[in-house]
Each structure stands twice: as C-alpha cells, then as structure tokens.
C-alpha cells in the first residue's frame, strides 16, 4: 500500500514537476531540503495528493519538517486515510 503511494507520487513528480519521466526518485531521497521540489511546485504536490488520495495537506505542512521524502509523505497520507 505504502509502496503504491510512493510509486504513484514518484511518477507524478518525475513527469509533471521535474519533466524528466525517466528520473528515478528513491523512497528516502530528500525532496524539499534538496530543492528537488522547489517552492513553486509544492502547491502542485499538495493538489495532486488531495485529488489522488483524498487527503489534504495544509499549506503550513509543506516543509521538510513535516515530510521530506516519498516514504514520509506516504506515511502522512496513510495516517490521514484511516
């Protein structure tokens, strides 16, 4: 389940945000603190999560302290789905 979430978001980030479809994003790779997802794209990520998983990520949560990797984000999503 978590793997599925990770894969779905990884695909979205590589294709839509980075525009490098072949880019592999590791489940524990830093996303925000590394600048891989820049501040202009954080809102895209939040909107995608909301549309795809029916879970809201508040704008004040869009920072590395709340989640900085796909696995952490997937965990956050799962905890809100249940």
């Amino acid at each position: 389940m978590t793997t599925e979430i990770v894969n779905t978001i990884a695909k979205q980030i590589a294709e839509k945000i980075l525009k490098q479809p072949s880019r592999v994003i590791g489940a524990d790779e830093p996303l925000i603190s590394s600048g891989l997802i820049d501040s202009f794209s954080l809102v895209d990520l939040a909107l995608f999560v909301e549309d795809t998983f029916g879970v809201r990520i508040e704008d004040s949560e869009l920072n590395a302290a709340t989640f900085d990797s796909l696995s952490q984000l997937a965990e956050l999503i799962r905890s809100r789905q249940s």
Partner: protein
Amino acid sequence: MTTFSERLQSHLHQTPERVAVTLQFANLPDLPISYSQLLRGAQGFSASLKKEGIASGEVVLLILRHGEELIYSYFGVIIHGAIPSVMSFLTEKLSPERYRADLSTLISVTRPAAIVTYGEFVDEVREALKGGDSVRAVIVAESVPAEKVNISSWSGLKRKPEDIALLQHSSGTTGLQKGVALSHQAVFNQLDVYSKVLGLNEKDVIVSWLPLYHDMGLIAGFLLPILYGIPLVLMSPFDWVRAPYRLMQSVSKYKGTLSWLPNFAYNFCAQKIRDRHLEGVDLSTWRAVINCSEPVRWESHLAFQEKFQAYGLPENALHSSYAMAENVFAVTQSTLGSKPRVEVIEREAFMMERVVRDANDKASVTVMSSGHALPNVQIKIVDEKGNELPERVIGEIALKSDCMLTGYYNRPDATEKAFVDGWYVTGDYGFISGGEIFVSGRKKDMIIVGGKNVYPQDLEVLSYEVPGVHAGRSVAFGLFDEEQGTEEVVIIAEADSDVEAENQKIAELIRQHVTKNSAIALRHVKVVGPKWILKTSSGKTARSANKEKYLQELGRG
C-alpha cells in the same frame, strides 16, 4: 524636501494610532501595528545600535524573516540615521556554506557596521565574519525590547535629503556585489510622482506578499505605504507560494486596492488556486494589480482575468510597469482606468529586422505595453553607438530622472560603467510606440526567474565545481516558459566524453549542486561532448549564440 525620519515623525504626530501595517502569518491571527507601536519597536533598535556605537551613515545589514523584528529594525536603523539593507534569510534548500560565502561577499563590498539577526542564527553569521572586517556588532533581534519613543534621540532627523537612505541588493555573488544606494530625495522624488500617477487616496489599501530584499517588495510593498500613510497588509512570500489564495483572501478581507506582482504570479494564481479557497472572496475593490519586475505578458493577464473575474475582479484592474532598483522603482506605468495597450506585430520583422510593424495577416506576436514614462523620467531608445532611434525601432532603453541611484555602494567602477553621457543604460531592449514603452528583451545576460534576478556567470561558476566539468566549459541562459509565465534556466556543460550514461550522471550532479547553491531550482541541464559550446573570438562564452544553437537542436530555432 524631506527625509524618512521626518516623514515618520509627522505620522507619529498626526496619526499615532492609525494602523501602518497588518502582518499576516499562516495559522496565527493577523497583527495590526500602529505608527506609534512601529516607532516604539524602532526606538528599541535605535537604542541598541547607539549602545553598540553604530554611527549615523553606517550600513546595518538585516538578516531576518517576515515579521515584527524586520519591520522594527528597518525603521530603527532609519531613525538612528544609519542605512538599512535587507538580505534574504537562509532557505530550506540553500547550502549553509554557500549562504556564508554570499554573506562574506556582501560584507566585503558593502562593509556593514552591524548585523541584526535572530539568536539562533548568530553563530551562522559569526562564521562568515573575518578578523578585521567592518562588522562591529551582531544584534539579536528578539532580545531588543520596544522603548518609549524619544524623538530628540533620533539622529535620523539630522540626515539630509541627499544622504543615502537605504541599500538594495539582488541575489547571488554578482548581485550582492552591487548594492544600489538610494538617497532620501531620490526615494521621495520617485514616490511623490508615482503616487500621483496611481492616484493614491485615503481609500487605498496595499496588499503584498513580496519580500523586502527585492525592490518591488521594498519600495511598492513596504516604503510607499508606510511613508505615505496607506494601510499595508503584508504576508510572507513563503506562506504565499504555498497558498497563493491567501493574497485573494487578504484583498477581500481588507478591501485591498493595490498590489504588485511579477508576471509569473499571474499564471501561478490562475493555475493553482482552487475555487473552494475563494468561497466568499470579493475582489471588487482591487483597482490595480500591477505587473512588473519581469517581462509582462498579455497571455498572463488574460488567464488571471478569466480566473478571477467571477470573484469581482474589475475589468480594467490589471496593469503593467517597467521598474528597476536603479530608478528607485517605477520607470513607466500603464494608465489606470483602462487596459494596458496591446499591439499585434509582425513576428519576422520584430525578430530579424528589429522593427515593429502591424502584423495585418502575417505571422504575429502580441506585445503588451508597460505604459508611459513617469513624468519625472525621460526615456530614449538607442542603437549600439548610442544614437537615438525613432519610434517602433528596437534598441536599448536608456533613462534619466531625478530619482536615480546615488551609485552602486562602494563600487565607483560599476557606477561609472552604468551611465553614458548622464543617461543610465538599462541593458534592456525595447521600443516606443505611440509614446508608450514596450520592453522586448535583454542585452545583458541576466536571467529573471519568477521576478528574481539571476546572473548566469554565477551559475556557470557553480557548475565548474562539479567533477567532470571544466572551468570555462559550461553556459547558462534563460528560456521563456509559456505555461509558467517566466524564464527557466538552462545549463549546458561540456564533458570529456560522449558516453550518454556518464553524462546523465554529471547532469544530475549539476542540477543538485546549482540548486543547493543558488536561488533557483535547476531543471534543464544538458551535458554534451567536447567542442559543443561556442566561444567568441576572444575566447569568451557567447551565451546568446549557445542559446540559439540549443533551440535549433530542439527544433525550436
């Protein structure tokens, strides 16, 4: 003529309890600050600068985030008679080593006498200091208490209109070495005229999310309202970029009338705000949303209008301005009350002949005017030799005004280079049509990403630090991205081989390194084999020629 301190004193006497600024924070109640509260906060900082022996006319660097401390310290420096300069705070993604190096660069050129920052950041700042440099005090912002206002202590009241009031820097190694120094007189000459052009009145409320280390934020979104008694609603750029709808909610809540935005923000707001965040929002008071600090796009205005007219955005609210820190701020402004003029011109003539002709039925490009020159600004379009060109011929924009910079601070060499026969040559290309200024491109190599100035040479130097890339063998340039309404940076670097897999790895390292060490997030990197990059006869990298080559390879030339 007046000075900042005199103007603040008069607000304190006339309207001490009036709200000067309302600060907004995510998840916290709004914080209204009256003129008297603002100046009590400022008095505390002035006292602490005095205690540290900081003299009138010395530079004080402010390294603070959005918040009360930034505002109090800014005006504390002013009433103390010193010169404030705001440096952006370390962001989540920026490498602390790079930040320190940038800070050292700024200190070595600007020679500030003191730095104001947070307690948690003092060690970081001290790391950047060297024995024998100019910094005599590091003041911890949150430990400075407000004090009872004591106007007789204000050394700022002894400043003369021609004295330097403030410095303004853009980012990166190159930008930090060129602090624009502006006098009190220049700022008031600009703002007196600009406020008339805008028809500023007692019903106006300015709403801004722009950072104070940028001219648009500092002048239009901070000093103009506070010095001219127009209520300001100010939020953090970091909160806005994560929740762009906050701008609309604030305009609605405070009946905002004026805002300034870089072009990308029109696209950003039009694309990324959900209707559920706009429930009950009323934008009918918003009489001017002014597009400046990067090339203005008619398509961006259309997208913004279409998205927000359902929420009451007036028909003629979207405007344009051509602005730069060297002229304090605005050089031109589109006429309020009507839409900025748009011309549909012949693409071929525009690109190849550098002249402007109506397209009629030929392939066309739509260009939007930035309006008329301000009444105190003279503009001419010049050719390579400095000869003035007629209307509808593209050349470099040169200007003259009574609100120009005093100089680049401690950089007489750079100041001298910027002027030719008393005219400031902007490095921007444009043309005049029907008396209005259209900005069409850039002679200088600077890239503007989301309103932020980025110097390609800084990015190229960063790429040389990546193993596998040799000095002098990469090139950076900007490419306009239609969807985002701003430029994206492209870096091309030569590697020793043509092995694709190896070069992919180098590309990824360049992306990571440049992103960690600059203000931008780098996406487009192409690593090529030897001898790809075009050089001029003198061995310099020709950025525009390499951009052409890149576009041709993409089939977009």
